[in-house]
């Protein structure tokens, strides 16, 4: 009997640890158009920490140099679009290697004002190479 009490206590502790951790750090993840659609509703996401997914917009990344105590730091401004909705992103760290206009991207950060996110993480998915190209197309080109 004593053993089962111990077991229940341990299991409860695990459950508690996992549940509280998950609640405090699991982040809502949503596409740009859903985020923007909620702006004017009472359920606006302004002020929340979110993950927003979409595609890097065609407007070129604007990088502005700022002088800080540690040296010159760049702030990057770019857009993430999805279903004709746009989100403006501010980001201070290094953009990933695979960051390209039109590429899929996810942005983590605080949604500071409608349409603006202060990102702390920008992640791109590796686009697999030449996705559009099938082997048949390649053969056509080869035989030219």
């Amino acid at each position, binding site marked *: 009997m004593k*053993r089962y009490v*111990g077991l229940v206590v*341990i299991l409860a502790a*695990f459950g508690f*640890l*996992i549940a509280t*951790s*998950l609640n*405090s*750090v*699991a*982040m*809502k*993840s*949503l596409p740009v158009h859903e985020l923007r659609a909620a702006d004017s509703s009472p359920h606006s996401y302004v002020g929340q920490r979110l*993950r927003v997914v979409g595609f890097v917009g065609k407007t070129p990344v604007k990088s502005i*140099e700022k002088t*800080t105590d*540690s*040296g*010159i*730091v*760049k702030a990057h401004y770019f857009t993430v679009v999805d279903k004709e909705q746009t989100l403006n992103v501010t980001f*201070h*760290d*290094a*953009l990933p*290697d*695979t960051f*390209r206009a*039109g590429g899929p991207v996810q942005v*983590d950060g605080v949604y500071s004002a409608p349409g603006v996110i202060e990102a702390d993480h920008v992640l791109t*998915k*590796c686009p*697999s*190479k*030449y*996705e*559009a*190209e099938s*082997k*048949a*197309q*390649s*053969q*056509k*080109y*080869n035989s030219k």
Partner: protein
Amino acid sequence: MIPSIGQLMLWLALSCAVYGIAITIAAYRLPEARRQACLSSAFNATLAVWWLVAAASGTLIYLFLTDDFSVNYVWAHSSLAQPIQFKVSAMWAGQSGSLLLWTLMLAGYGALIAVVGRRHEYGGDKLEAQLAPTAAAVVQGINLLFLGLVCFVTKPFETGPPVTDGSGMNPLLQNYWMQIHPPTLYLGYVGCSVPFAWAAAALLHKQFGKDWVTLVRRWTLIPWLILGVGIIMGGAWAYETLGWGGYWAWDPVENASLMPWLTATAFLHSIMIQARRGMLKNWNMVLVSLTFLLSVFGTFLTRSGVVSSVHSFAESNIGGYFLVFLGVALVLSFGLIIWRRDELATEFTFESVLSREGAFMLNNWILLGSAFAVLWGTIYPALREAIDGQSVSVGAPYFNKVMVPLGLMLLGLTGIGPLMAWRRTTPAALLRTAKWPIVAAIAAAPLFYFLSAWHTGAVTAFCLGVFVAAGIILEFVKGTRARMSMTDEGPRTAFFNLLLRNRRRYGGYVVHLGIVLLFAGFAGSSGFKIETEPITLQKGETMRVGEYTLRFEGLVEPPPGQLAPEKQQEIAAHMTVFLMPPDKIKSDTKPMATLYPHIDIFKLAGNVSPEARAGQAPQSARRPAIMSNLANDLYLALIDANNEENKASIKAYLNPLVMWIWISMLFFVAGTAIAMWPDSRATRAEARAKADESPRASAGAETKLAREKALEKI
């Protein structure tokens, strides 16, 4: 022609596997007299599967080496210009080829089991030989899934229209780690099937006595070690080449490899209780099965596309097969355990929580809890999506929050467990044995106060690390002293004999020391990491990270002709490193090091039409430059390079104690090797003990035996 031969060999291998299973089942149904012939045939089938899959794998590599782009898989992962070593490793660069590698390794393990079993009469009385035919058949049963996939679903030898050049391997994979890490990890992963096969065989033959424990321990240690080393190697690959300053990201695929390793670790501990006290037999069977099921589940995660991961295969659509297989394996393995529940009943019960058994049990729960926490965090987004359509993400913060306290508890147990006596111990007795380790840990604590910053988790880890290490050193000292007083050996001889006589125990301690180093590395690099923002530097300008000053001396490119063939361009930032503030640096001050973080820009390899290429910028990768020493790593990444203005953006990291993570690997290997080394002395002592049981044994031999036994117990 050649691709068809490869495919044919796979079909033959599948047939042989089916035949091998059938004939093994038949062998145990037929009368005794015909059994041997059937098992002999099953043995041949097991070896045939291995040779056929090996030949098929060789064929695929041959097709890569001869640039046969009519084979779709070769076309997709190789090109004429691809260096030869990457043509070979392209075999496992994609879905079907990596499944073939999996099949190959599984077939290899099967053959190994059979060959080991064949050393005695196959299927005979000796335990290994008795269980080997069944274990080999179980391995073949698992291989049916993988062989079936490469035969019918995702065929590596599938051909299409002939083309003159392939599309090339992803340049990010063109790295020497690509030759080492995936095969190592797979070998460990696939190896998780092997203890399961021995366990299933043991359940079917009702043989789970002491001999089985020895056997399954050995066959678990091998994949456990390889999987662990493979995981650390993956971290090293990410750290060295990806330029984001870390080695572990809690990516679903990383998690997938960690889960079976955690349950295997739990198994290696609780099997000791079975060996010593005949307890927990059913629990051990559950752990072996879980380890195997989690290894398959990990493969499912990687290849089904249910979770998004940087490692996922783009073209994955084979998740369903894994899910079905997983269901069948779950039912069969747990069904077997329930079927044998009476035979698996415990011989003894727990006497006290405060005992070695109690510590092992707690260790098991924490390891299993960790595996579950990782599993839950990994699949939670997919579950939420399926249940209420909400899309959430669970990242590193969750895992760190859960795993840090669990890890610290585990580290503490690593120290306390070995100090506890079997059966029962009193708090006073425990305190007496743990006195010096506790004193050492408390004495070390103030030292950590002088660290650059306070980090509770990391300092706790350091103190616990000191506690564990002190406990282990004390054990070594006590053992050596006891040997010295019982024999006339000098300290050095006594120490080595101690290691040799009690290989399992002291090998385990060496692994524990590795764990301490691993935790020190984790604690240092996560608790005291310094990271700058990317700083834009003009030539001659400096930046600071920790105590270091970094000066940018200009952008450099390798001279023409020295550029690697797969690269279009390589831009490096010439950085000099000084260990002093910038105002102390004079024009003649010699830098302590020069580092070249760089950006590789890859050629668009292969023969690809301009239309497909339009709009695709060439792939590039940031390659960090690292200056390592035992205290910390200075890690520089070149973020942007502006050639016209000769400006560079540099991000610097100072990662303390990372080196110890790689060093811990040596302890794992050494400790496991010590623990696994065949115990010829033990067998000799056993043989002598048997001889001594005869009435003619002299009194002298008896006392010698008693002394021998006392020494073994130290």
